[in-house]
């Protein structure tokens, strides 16, 4: 086209980024890659290769190795050997390595960006201005944690060898989120990039070797999902970190169940984008562009559900549609486009299927009349209007450039609609009213909440989900704990695996209610005045209630003497307790909404009332467990101390201001999980019960407690203490009975947010396995006892960490 012609039309033209260096790098490797183990290219014989295509034009970029078991074993061995040295390397030395990696990323910035766009299809503007700068940022940030580890994290140790499986939508960024925190604090890594996008991880491997990182600290294994399973199930891998679909996340949860491996999952989303009538509408329209058309909408936290206040919906959608008309879709290496190519044909077809489904469901599909390239996997920005929450397209993650819109009338309705999802990864809300904005932000169930902004990320702020969007955080101080274990705790290796899966699962938690027992020989002779019969009950919703089925469980002392009877709880007792625990949240004021001051007062008060009856509790413990009177008294004293401890923490663990790159305020709030089911161990029946209950309720959770199966009477005595301590109804619920039988109902209850299980290895296996149904958070003992009397093992940060989840609220400032 001639200059004069363009002078009149003022069209845009192509502005291609050169791919010379990236292609030369592929040529250097003859477009055929091995595995990166021990800082060397390993080219196993007789393996299969997998092609990597450029989604924008279908061209073959290179072939990569499909690793098998020998290669995975080799990499694990390399990582294990490296761990022995790396974990003992001083933090200040590791900091230098991470700094060198960060610097080397910057030195190869453009090459990384270009290759990323070629392999993935994302616009070069994004890979160059967002992905790669954040990649460097993560290594800088975590170089800092290496430096600080000995002073700031001295109660913790690295977990060991970490298997990390990452998705194709942000190959480099996800790699950074995974690798940087892991190696910063002394772990070593096997990274498996996604099949569609393996090339930049291989380039990255060369770059870190160039930076001088010792061999084996980072190993890159390419392979199919089979190789993924090999990593996940490898006995010498201590932790799995995964980002990807919720379905695969469920599989990994089941595959790692009962293994003692740590697991963090960052899964799908259907994040709301809420526009209130007092928002800057033009600003919010650009927000939508960044929310759903960033990376072609292939973003787990994409703002894919637009919720607009009804009185401005018409105007807003009109502005949005006009904006869509100026979107440019084209060659990812073109610097003059907004959207590149969809990563793969399968994905393209899925997206298209959902758009058709949206139309069938009564949605009005809008796509702008813009040009798409003739070939390549391009999809136009798409808006589906007039859908209702019942539509599948509103509920399911599409993972493409498709936005669905709904209207709302009031802030309360906006919150209800926003939270009407199984996911909870992120949310964006737009309003110029700070009171409204911050109130709504606090009520959204999501790990990241962006006020008047969207899709902002930084290494200093943890990213991760609520609900079925997974658990664990990546980034921030909060993200480090996914790669740490308490210093006192060795890697649990329960190695429970059922021989006959079906039969074993059916028999776990099976239970026949208890029957009457003939008392022992020491019968009353009728001349003594009998004690008034005392019937401990369940404690649900602040009331002492009889068990649903009226079965009774005899309780014996360790010497075999019948010392009492408790209700033999069943499924319905658990159901009722969970309902009561939820009611305690929806009451006004809900337990989590109360001030920490109020919760601390109540915990102090519980301690005060326990103290008043300490002799009675000590005697109960002595008789139940057969311990010495002195030990029993000290257990009560320790329980009182624990209550004081968590009364202290009730108003001192709210969160922190995160030092992100945002001009404004990023607040990391430690929010409660919601309803937590807690199965207590048999040892220290009072102390363990209190040590688990107190941190949970101190941080705003409501709990369903299954007390010690053998010694439940301390817990049933305890509800009278609760009753006199101003504990609101439903905050603590106590259901006595068979631990595993009751736990089975709890873990399968999909309105329970977390389960803590301190029981057998087998029970731990099933708790983790069954939690996959709604991805609830679990904390299990794997049948390993901890010393509840120890301040290190029985209390502290680990408990607070397990009792909370971090929500990061981003509030940009400036008028």
């Amino acid at each position, binding site marked *: *086209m*001639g*200059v*004069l*012609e*363009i*002078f009149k*039309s*003022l*069209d*845009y*033209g*192509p*502005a291609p980024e050169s791919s010379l260096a990236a292609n030369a790098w592929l040529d250097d490797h003859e477009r055929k890659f091995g595995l990166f183990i021990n800082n060397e290219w390993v080219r196993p014989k007789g393996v299969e290769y997998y092609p990597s295509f450029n989604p924008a034009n279908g061209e073959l970029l290179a072939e990569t190795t499909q690793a098998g078991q020998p290669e995975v074993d080799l990499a694990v061995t390399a990582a294990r050997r490296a761990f022995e040295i790396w974990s003992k390397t001083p933090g200040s030395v590791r900091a230098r390595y991470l700094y060198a990696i960060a610097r080397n990323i910057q030195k190869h910035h453009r090459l990384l960006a270009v290759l990323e766009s070629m392999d993935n299809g994302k616009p070069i*503007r994004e890979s160059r*201005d967002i992905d790669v700068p954040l990649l460097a940022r993560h290594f800088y940030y975590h170089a800092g944690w290496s430096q600080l580890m000995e002073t700031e994290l001295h109660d913790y140790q690295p977990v060991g060898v970490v298997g990390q499986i990452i998705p194709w939508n942000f190959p480099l960024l996800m790699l950074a989120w995974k690798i940087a925190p892991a190696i910063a604090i002394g772990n070593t890594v096997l990274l498996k990039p996604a099949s569609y996008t393996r090339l930049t991880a291989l380039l990255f491997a060369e770059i870190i070797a160039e930076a001088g990182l010792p061999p084996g600290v980072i190993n890159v294994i390419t392979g199919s999902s089979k190789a993924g399973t090999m990593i996940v199930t490898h006995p010498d891998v201590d932790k799995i970190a995964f980002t990807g679909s919720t379905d695969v996340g469920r599989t990994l949860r089941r595959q790692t169940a009962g293994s003692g491996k740590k697991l963090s999952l960052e899964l799908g989303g259907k994040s709301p984008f809420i526009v209130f009538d*007092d*928002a*800057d*509408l*033009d*600003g*919010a329209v*650009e*927000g939508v562009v*960044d929310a759903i058309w960033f990376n072609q909408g292939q973003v787990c936290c994409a703002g894919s559900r637009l919720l607009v206040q009804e009185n401005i919906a018409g105007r807003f959608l009109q502005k949005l549609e*006009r904006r869509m008309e*100026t979107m*440019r879709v084209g060659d990812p290496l073109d*610097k*003059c*486009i*907004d959207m590149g190519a969809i990563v793969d044909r399968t994905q393209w077809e899925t997206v298209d299927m959902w758009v058709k489904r949206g139309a069938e469901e009564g949605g009005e599909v809008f796509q702008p009349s813009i040009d798409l390239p003739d070939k390549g996997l391009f999809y136009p920005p798409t808006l589906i209007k007039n859908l209702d929450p019942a539509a599948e397209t509103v509920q399911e993650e599409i993972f493409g450039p498709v936005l669905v819109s709904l209207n709302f009338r009031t802030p309360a309705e906006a919150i209800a609609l926003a939270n009407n999802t199984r996911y909870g990864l992120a949310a964006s809300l*737009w309003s*110029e009213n700070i009171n409204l904005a911050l109130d709504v932000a606090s009520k959204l169930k999501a790990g990241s909440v962006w006020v*008047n*902004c969207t899709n902002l990320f930084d290494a200093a702020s943890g990213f991760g989900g609520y609900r079925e969007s997974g658990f664990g955080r990546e980034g921030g101080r909060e993200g480090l704990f996914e790669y740490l274990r308490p210093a006192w705790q060795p890697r649990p290796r329960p190695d429970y695996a059922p021989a006959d899966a079906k039969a074993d699962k059916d028999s776990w938690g099976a239970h026949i209610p208890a029957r009457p027992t003939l008392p022992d020989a020491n019968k009353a002779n009728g001349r003594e005045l009998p004690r008034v019969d005392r019937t401990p009950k369940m404690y649900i919703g602040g009331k002492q209630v009889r068990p649903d089925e009226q079965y009774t469980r005899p309780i014996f002392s360790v010497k075999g003497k019948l010392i009492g009877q408790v209700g033999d709880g069943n499924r319905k007792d658990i159901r009722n307790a969970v309902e009561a625990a939820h009611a305690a949240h929806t009451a006004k004021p809900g337990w989590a909404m109360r001030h920490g001051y109020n919760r601390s007062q109540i915990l102090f008060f519980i301690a005060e009332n326990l103290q008043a009856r300490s002799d009675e509790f000590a005697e109960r413990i002595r008789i139940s467990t057969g311990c010495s009177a002195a030990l029993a008294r000290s257990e009560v004293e320790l329980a009182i101390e624990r209550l004081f401890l968590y009364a202290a923490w009730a108003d001192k663990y709210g969160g922190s201001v995160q030092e992100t790159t945002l*001009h*404004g305020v990023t607040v990391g709030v430690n929010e409660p999980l919601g309803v937590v089911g807690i199965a207590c161990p048999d040892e220290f029946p009072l102390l363990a019960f209190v040590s688990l209950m107190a941190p949970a309720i101190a941080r705003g959770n409501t709990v369903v407690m299954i007390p010690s199966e053998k010694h439940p009477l301390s817990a049933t005595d305890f509800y009278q203490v609760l009753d006199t301590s101003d504990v609101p109804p439903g905050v603590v619920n106590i259901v006595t009975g068979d631990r595993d039988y009751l736990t089975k109902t709890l873990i399968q209850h999909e309105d329970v947010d977390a389960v803590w299980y301190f029981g057998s290895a087998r029970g731990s296996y099933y708790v983790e396995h069954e939690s996959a149904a709604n991805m609830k958070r679990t904390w299990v003992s794997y049948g390993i006892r901890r010393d509840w009397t120890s301040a290190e093992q029985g209390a502290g940060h680990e408990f607070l960490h397990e009792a909370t989840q971090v929500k990061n609220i981003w509030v*940009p*400032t*400036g*008028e």
Partner: protein
Amino acid sequence: MTANQYRNPGMPLDLAWVMRARVNRSALERRTATLPARRAIKKEWQAAWLLRAITCIDLTTLAGDDTPGRVRRLCAKAKQPVRPDMLAALGAAEADITVGAVCVYPNRVREAVEALKGTHIPVASVATGFPDGQTPLAQRIAEIEQAIESGATEIDVVIARTYVLTGDWKALYDEIRLFRDVCGGSAHMKTILATGDLGTHKQVYQASLVAMMAGSDFIKTSTGKEKVNATLEFGLVMTRAIREYADQTGYQVGFKPAGGINSAKQALAWQALMREELGVEWLMPDLFRIGASSLLTDLERQLYHYITGHYAARHHMPMG
């Protein structure tokens, strides 16, 4: 958008509309930070766009040391902004490339008109107590009248910032309306908001709306004399106000950023902003002007680079 080709007649002051304005600064900043990166313009497209930018320049001299000679030299450059050999190389020798206007103080209008005789290049004059607008109203009105009488066909008026800062939208409206009436059919009016003097971006949006309601043909960011001149954020606020006004009334109001724009890169960013927020019509000189004095040299150097592949020396471009 549907828009009317005719000159904006203005409308009664709609205070409810003005008060409804909402501008989120951080959202503005994100848009302006990424917009130039989203719209890279290269090769022949860049040459064409830069050539177009030249036709939108209000080539300006507003200094105490302006003399008839200085104005004459500027006008010569306005008529021949690009070296003929370069225009030929671009295939644009016949395109009659001139700048959009020459902009001077009222006292220099006559000389500029004289120098530009025989061309279609309009002379623009600043007026109404430029740059601060702090002189009695009668004098400010008289300046407009005298500039028009001297031959100016475009008048760049400054607003009284006092009215914006005190929220007296009615007074602001009335005064601009009065300026517009004085300009009448003889001159187009560009209203300078002096955005750097205003408190917030929301006030810039509100002042833009009031200026358009009062009948401005263009709204303009700055006098060039404020501490902060034409930023892309101010530009984004004002172009969005223009779009909203066109949506509501059907009239297209032009936009002129001025002050501190001196590189081709900046010019392209402003052009991308116009095209993205308002559309291609707002890239033409009847709806878009760039107030600048030294920008032209850099545009020429970039054109030279496009033509020859060599980076250009500043002293090879004839001075204005």
